[in-house]
Structures are given as structure tokens and as C-alpha cells.
């Protein structure tokens, strides 16, 4: 049953996405691919759209995957599931007066989790770049984008906004592949 699958899938995403939006992306990719809900390319497109629309990325992705698999109800189920763990955990922490949060074993768990997630995120980013720059034109786009994105930051310590980067990449895609 698709609603139950969506609920369980996005509940795990919500439960393990330590470190915010980008930590959720590898997990969502895992879940979506293992259930075969949508194509990996479609998911990547959707990440770009989520980055360019308001709201937390993982809520946006849950809504999108849920509603494309199970209509409006699917969207509601997936969104509810992805939000639920964050909601409950904050309530628990408030109720327990942060004692749980200060516990040394909780801290030890977090000490292991956070760097592990960073490694997972870095690997996901690399794999996505490599996967999507297979021909020379996208490889060229990748180089241009990397320069445009990282060089100004090193020199002027000014950051290009993600939305601006997405717009530049869209323009480069249209220029190299035609209208």
C-alpha cells in the first residue's frame, strides 16, 4: 500500500536528517530509489525547484514525491511523516528540560553522526556532479559553475546565492544545448 510506504519512508527521512535540509537529500534519494518511486533525474530537478521555492527543502521534496505517487492524500501523508519526528523530538527536549540533550551518550552519538552525515553529503554531491556531466558540454558547464561559485568567494568572500547559481546553470544549459 502506497500510503503506508510513503509514511514509513518519509518518517525515516525525518528521523535521521540530522544537520538540516542537505542532510535529508541523500536519505530521500536512498528511500526514493529503493522504493522506485520516481526517476533519479526527476528527483534532482525537484531539488533545484525546492531550492528556488520557499520552505524547507525536505518538506518540499516530501510533498512532491508524495503527491506524484499518491495524489493529494499521498502528499499530505509524506509531508506529515517527514515533519513528525522533528515535532515530537523538540517537544520531548522541552519537556525533559534539555537533560536528554546534555547527556554524554547522546553527545557521543551526535559526535559520530555529524561527521558521518558530512561524508555522505559530500559523496552524494560528487556522485551527482559526475553522473550529470557525462558529455563534454555538461562537463564544461560543471567547470564554469564551479569557477563562478567558488572563486568569487575565495577572492571577495562574497557568496553567490543558490537561486542565482541555478539560474546561471539553466542559462548555460539552454545556451549549450539550444532552445
Amino acid at each position: 500500500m502506497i500510503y503506508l510506504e510513503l509514511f514509513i519512508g518519509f518518517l525515516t527521512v525525518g528521523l535521521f536528517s540530522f544537520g538540516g535540509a542537505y542532510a535529508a537529500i541523500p536519505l530521500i534519494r536512498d528511500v526514493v530509489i529503493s522504493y522506485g518511486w520516481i526517476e533519479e533525474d526527476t528527483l534532482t530537478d525537484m531539488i533545484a525547484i525546492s531550492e528556488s521555492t520557499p520552505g524547507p527543502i525536505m518538506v518540499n521534496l516530501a510533498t512532491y514525491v508524495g503527491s506524484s505517487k499518491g495524489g493529494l492524500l499521498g502528499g499530505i501523508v509524506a509531508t506529515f511523516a517527514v515533519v513528525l519526528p522533528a515535532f515530537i523530538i523538540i517537544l520531548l527536549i522541552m519537556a525533559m528540560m534539555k537533560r536528554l540533550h546534555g547527556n554524554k551518550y547522546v553527545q557521543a552519538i551526535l559526535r559520530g553522526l555529524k561527521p558521518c552525515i558530512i561524508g555522505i553529503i559530500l559523496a552524494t554531491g560528487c556522485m551527482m556532479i559526475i553522473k550529470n556531466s557525462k558529455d563534454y558540454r555538461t562537463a564544461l558547464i560543471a567547470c564554469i559553475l564551479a569557477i563562478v561559485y567558488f572563486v568569487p568567494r575565495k577572492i571577495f568572500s562574497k557568496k553567490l546565492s543558490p537561486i542565482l547559481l541555478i539560474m546561471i546553470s539553466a542559462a548555460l544549459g539552454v545556451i549549450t544545448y539550444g532552445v
Partner: protein
Amino acid sequence: MISIIINICVVKKKWITHDEIMNVAVIAESTPGPIAINCATYVGYKKKGIMGAIVATLGVVLPSFIIIYLISIFLNNFLEIKWVVNAFKGIRVAVGLLILDAGFNMIEKMKKEPFQVAVVCSSFIVMVLINIFAWNFSSILLMFIAAIVSVLIIMVQEAQSGKGGAFK
């Protein structure tokens, strides 16, 4: 996101103090889920208990839910237009770059002790291998292993310092 939250909750509505919201941000860093949800739940609970928490969380989710739902209805037609397809060929590369950058930013904020650095490197390598060989190994399992190893190290360190006498 956090600046909008501060502007509304602290400056305009005076629901909570600036110190408190910073505290929530710190907690949000080490709990799963989007920071906006964490803040909404916290502020809602503080002002009006469970009902307040539910209403505030619902409120923060609703706009993105509606926007994305509308987009999902039209996206498939939109993705059949040829220049849009080409634009997305470029965009997919940019998404990879943004994810990579998010990882770099997290490294900057991370404590760079040998343990953390080792975990970053090994989880990176394992993830790349999983992708190359299409192993059936979830990233959640990888996170479990990292957490268990970290707890074991802490326990071993404590046992050793216990033997070594009064050493804190």
C-alpha cells in the same frame, strides 16, 4: 530562514527572546528535521502548549505544501518543453555543486579532531563505493555504525581514565 524567524518571533511579535531563539537554533543543529519546524514547534509550545505547537508547525508547513503541490501538478507537462529540458541539464550539475558546498560548510563548522576527520573520510569513501558497485547498503545503516563506534570510543576512554585514577 533563521533571519525571517527572528524578525517575526522576536522583533515583531515578541513571542520569545533573542537568546532563546539562538538556543533553539543550537538544539535544531543536533536534532533531525528542518530548523523551521523545530523553531515553530518550540515557539508554539511555549506560547500555548501542545495545541500551539501543532498550529505553529502546521502554519510553517502549509505554504510550501501548497506551492509544491501546485508545481507537482504542472511539472510533468513543463518538463516536456525542449528548452526547459536543456535548462535542467545545466541545473542538475548546479544541484550537485550546491550539495557539495553544503558539505563543505558543515566541515567548516565541525570540530576537527582526528576522530571526526576519520569518520568524514571513511563515510565518504564507503558512500562512493556503494554508488559505484550499487551495493544494497543504506546510508542510515552507515550512520548507525558511526554513532555506535563513537559511543564505544567514549566508553573505552572512560574505562581507561577510571583505571588511571582521578583524571577528568
